[in-house]
């Protein structure tokens, strides 16, 4: 960690672990989509609108919406696991 100047670099750097992008389908026709509402105001309106359009215009088979405990906290691993069993596509809202 010591630099050329004789100082110690106080930063830790990231973990270095890379996460691969999940393979994207050609389109959403027939897919089950999961929407994650983080409880922030307007998240419900955004996701309801998204759900409606996905069903009407993109041929999505089913939309499942879940609400996590609080927008300032990550969803629990169990909640993501449960959704991941049911859905093939996911979107979250809202950072705002």
């Amino acid at each position, binding site marked *: 960690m*010591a630099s050329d*100047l*004789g*100082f*110690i670099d*106080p*930063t*830790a*750097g*990231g*973990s270095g672990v890379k996460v691969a992008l999940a393979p994207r389908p050609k389109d959403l026709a027939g897919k089950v989509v999961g929407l994650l509402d983080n409880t922030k*105001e307007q998240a419900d309106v955004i996701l309801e609108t998204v759900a409606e359009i996905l069903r009407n215009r993109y041929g999505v088979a089913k939309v499942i919406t879940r609400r996590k*405990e*609080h*927008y*300032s*906290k*990550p969803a629990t691993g169990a909640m993501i696991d449960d959704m991941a069993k049911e859905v093939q596509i996911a979107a979250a809202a809202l950072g705002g």
Partner: protein
Amino acid sequence: MDEFEFFLEKDWSDGLPVVTPTEERVRAMLACTARGPDETIGAIPPAGGIATVRSVAIHAVMAGCKPEYLPIVLGGAALILREELNMGGVQCTMHGVAPLMIVNGPYGERIGLRGGNGCFGPGFRANATIGRAIRLILMNLGGGIAGIASATVFASPIRYTACLTEHMARSPWESLAVSRGYAAGDNVITCAMVESPRLHFDDVSTEPQRLLAGIGDAMTAPGSWNMWFNSDMVVAMSPQHAQLCADAGMSRRDVQIRLCELAVRPQKNLKRGGNWRPERARAMGLDPDDDECLVKAVKDPDRLHLIVAGGLGPVTAVCHGWNESSRAVHSAYSV
């Protein structure tokens, strides 16, 4: 290059010069703990940089700590990572709260932590540098910097440093830590997520009812998240104000409960501006159309952290909190 400029250019500071963390200084810092330098404290969110005993010591050096402060910095670094406090949320929020460390017990007093006049700073090395070390860790290991990981709108002065003790020599009550069941000889840190203190002057009251009614008013405010969440709050009464309550036979707990009863506003008053909205009222179990119902600033007396601090004089400092996703934490630390 000048070493002070080097660190400032690297964004490895809070904007003020830091003490250069040379191997020698870090070694001297580490001599004040029996813990191994590679021992992991935890990952600092959101970047996940790993705080070890050694990296905490590096930041303690940079912040200007004396080596004997290290046990408190180590205790604080572990405490802010407790899940209930939700440091990760605060590192990103638009809000400007900071983890305020309230240190109780003999070790803090021995190393010179200040609970008397001027205790929120500036001017006292232990208070200033222990809190600053925690901030530098949040910035350098967590990326909690405005414009980078943090969406904070203003931040606030309390993000430079936030560490104090109680003014036990002048307090009529047991310490905060003792009130939670610790022994008087235990070294304990309590950490709550709060805004900078707002100073409430009352040089008029001669009995608790009027005094606490006024402090209660200062605890409420349109635009404070305390009104619409089940959030924490820290109230630091000066010894003079605390004594007035104690002389009337009130315990710390009595004052805590009374303040929660008095710190209310009618909903119609909060509807005029700020962050009132019907969904938020409903989430608090209130009918949004009931104008007369009273909205409490602190919903649960256990979330009001009442301390006695500051110098002689008729002032109480009120630190509003953040949201309900953060809950104050406390723990003994080893020296």
